[in-house]
């Protein structure tokens, strides 16, 4: 011990007990990560690790962790180490372990071929034991024994080869089969979560500090798995999509970039099929929807929060907007098809799609702008009014600038949703499944002046146009290949392009928000 006296307030030496419990937490974390990797097919459970099958190794690991966890509890209960357990592990742990052990009992009875009554009976017996061991003993036994036992049980099943790579179970009544390579990782994930929590409690010496550490470990493992799934998803699409995206890509002399996938159409004359028309369609679609929805939404938000008397009317508008935001997109699509298309040349068109998606975006812009405007401190409004500045000028030069970051957040979220919408585009915008380059919308160059009303026309807005999600959907359902040599590669490239387009819109939005935040606070 580094000091002569050890006080209750200051603990500066690390006991062997803590060190062992800490490493058990670490091992649980590693098991959890490996389980996740196995679930995502990064490693196969029949791979051999140091001469033994991975699933058997998992079993040994879980058995060891289970034994260790029970050992922590017993050591603490027999007062070999200094801990501060509470009288009981608590109601949440009791209920959780009852459920776990009930399920274990019922499944085991089922495996032995018992009927419903037998399963319920076995479940009730084991659930009761689980409850009793969690609820009645002191916390150090209550939160380790049931946890260690379940991990040990799973360890025996995996280690003994009862459940392994070749294992499968037909689920009668579900028309489905469970395979070992899904069940083993799930079992490992669950058991390592439980042992991690339990070992963390032991590391913290149980009691308030132990619960704190336990919760910390649980939260970190869960957050870690969410992040893994997210990253895995993006990585999966990226890996699958890269060959298609960079098909024929090269940087020639003088910095000339050739990127046929992004600049070609999918027409018969294209040497390498590309997504240019659909890409332009999606970009214009989002731009059009934002141009329509942001001024309208922000204007409505200004009216509702600055001018309208707060009361039944604003309440009703609020309910209606929230309802609109959760309205299924196909309903918006139907509205666009039935209401907008007859008014824009009776055919599917880019502008009908823009407006439909604009209607979809509108409620979110309204809701977030309203919140952002309400969050602007009244101090600013008072200060401005006291300088004799009129209400509208105050809104324009103080309130709205202060609300821009919030409004931008709303637009970012909304763009993420509408850029990937397929149903409304299917009904309002159409376009070819494999459009040639010439089918790309040329909105800027499409404006034509004419001598008679409406004096300005833009055929590009009135033509059926393709968009990335729609083209992807059409490719998958219709299975057309046309001029495309490798439809699989093309479709994945398309998916990656859509992902990138959404990410680019996100990046623009986040940069805008960052710029205005800096301006407001620096």
């Amino acid at each position, binding site marked *: 011990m580094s000091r002569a006296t050890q006080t209750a307030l200051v603990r500066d030496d690390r006991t062997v007990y803590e060190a062992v419990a800490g490493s058990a937490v670490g091992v649980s974390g590693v098991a959890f990560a490996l389980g996740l990797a196995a679930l995502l097919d990064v490693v196969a459970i029949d791979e051999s690790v140091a001469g033994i099958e991975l699933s058997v190794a998992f079993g040994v690991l879980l058995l060891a962790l289970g034994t260790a966890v029970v050992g922590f509890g017993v050591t603490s209960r027999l007062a070999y180490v200094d801990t501060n357990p509470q009288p009981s592990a608590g109601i949440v742990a009791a209920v959780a372990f009852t459920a776990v052990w009930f399920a274990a009992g019922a499944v085991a009875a089922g495996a032995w071929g018992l009927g419903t009554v037998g399963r319920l009976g076995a479940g009730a017996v084991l659930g009761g034991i689980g409850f009793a061991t969690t609820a009645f003993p002191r916390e150090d036994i209550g939160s380790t024994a049931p946890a260690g036992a379940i991990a040990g049980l799973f360890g025996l099943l995996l280690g003994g080869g009862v459940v392994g790579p070749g294992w499968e179970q037909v689920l009668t009544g579900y028309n489905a089969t469970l395979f070992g390579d899904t069940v083993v990782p799930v079992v490992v994930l669950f058991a390592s979560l439980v042992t991690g929590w339990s070992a963390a409690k032991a590391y913290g010496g149980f009691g308030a500090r132990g619960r704190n550490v336990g919760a910390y470990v649980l939260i970190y493992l869960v957050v870690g798995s969410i992040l893994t799934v997210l990253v895995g998803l993006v990585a999966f699409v990226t890996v699958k999509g890269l060959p298609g995206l960079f098909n024929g890509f090269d940087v020639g002399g003088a910095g000339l970039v050739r990127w046929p996938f992004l600049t070609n159409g999918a027409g018969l004359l294209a040497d390498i099929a590309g997504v240019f028309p659909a890409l332009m369609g999606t970009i214009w679609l989002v731009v059009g929807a934002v141009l329509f929805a942001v001024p309208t939404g922000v204007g409505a938000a200004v009216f509702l929060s600055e001018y309208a008397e707060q009361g039944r009317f604003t309440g009703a508008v609020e309910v209606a907007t929230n309802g609109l935001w959760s309205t299924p997109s196909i309903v918006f699509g139907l509205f666009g098809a039935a209401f907008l298309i007859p008014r824009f040349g009776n055919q599917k068109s880019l502008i009908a799609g823009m407006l439909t998606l604009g209607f979809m975006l509108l409620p979110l812009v309204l809701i977030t702008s309203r919140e952002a405007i309400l969050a602007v*401190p009244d101090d600013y409004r*008072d200060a401005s009014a*006291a*300088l*004799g*500045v009129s209400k509208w000028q105050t809104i324009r030069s103080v309130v709205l600038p202060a609300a821009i970051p919030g409004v931008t957040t709303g637009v970012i979220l909304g763009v993420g949703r509408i850029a990937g919408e397929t149903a409304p585009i299917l009904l309002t915008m159409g376009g070819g499944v494999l459009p040639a380059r010439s089918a790309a919308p040329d909105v800027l160059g499409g404006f034509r002046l004419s001598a008679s009303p409406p004096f300005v026309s833009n055929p590009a807005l009135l033509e059926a146009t393709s968009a990335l999600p729609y083209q992807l959907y059409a490719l998958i359902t219709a299975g057309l290949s046309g001029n495309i040599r490798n439809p699989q590669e093309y479709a994945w490239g398309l998916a990656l392009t859509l992902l990138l387009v959404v990410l680019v819109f996100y990046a623009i939005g986040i940069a805008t928000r960052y710029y205005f935040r800096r301006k407001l606070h620096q």
Partner: protein
Amino acid sequence: MSQTDTAETTANRTDGQGASTTAGETVETTRPEWTNYETGGETKLAVEDLDVHYGDDHALKGVSMDIPERSVTALIGPSGCGKSTFLRCLNRMNDRIRAATVDGTVDLDGEDIYQDGVDLVELRKRVGMVFQSPNPFPKSIRENVSYGPRKHGDIETGLLARLTGRAEPDREETLVERSLERAALWDEVDDRLDDNALGLSGGQQQRLCIARCLAVDPEVILMDEPASALDPIATSKIEDLIEDLAQDYTVVVVTHSMQQAARVSDQTAVFLTGGELVEYDDTEKIFESPESQRVEDYISGKFG
């Protein structure tokens, strides 16, 4: 604390001291002559029978007082006595509270500001206000100061003004410098006028708010506890500034601190619980020999 509580406490204390109240009588009655103060200078603001209701709450009861030009008038009293309400009546900031109704007249240079057809923009340009907590806009220091004149169209800035040759950067510079100097802030910020005002310290922010108010060239400056959110050093700077401003402006300042009122003001009005103006006189008279027993108790710290 509700008003009845305070009234009872007052009654108990008064009884305890053996003041000239008979049993059953709760508080002394305010005599009109206590507030009938003849101001030395020209009257800038004349308030007559001002009543304010917030819904059912009678916040200000028949207040009449004349505020002289180019001087500091302090309004003191316990929390909830209506002194801030009174202040906010002087530039009609109470109009911004829906539930508030104001009766009576407030004459600014002989013209009633509560009559029909009063231009609030013009009124608030002439009667400026500084708030309790510093509230600069989240803009640069320069933009904060020139905000009022810009919005009133007195100074043209921005892209269109530059394109059409109407931009007056020099005039803006002069105005910003003059206002900041007048608010005793120029020396501290002259090298960072384009920084965000929220980066200033609390005391600097409050002086910036005063500069922002001065930039629209008001005649009257209302201050609602301008130093209550500041540390002692920043407070003393603000107090020096108030005294200094009184040479050119009519300053009305609400304060919680009696020391502050005694230090900076020429005349003091004491509001007591119930929205009543109890005594209004020269500051020296109020703090040395007030007529009202309740005012004396309040000033000597026995109440409120």
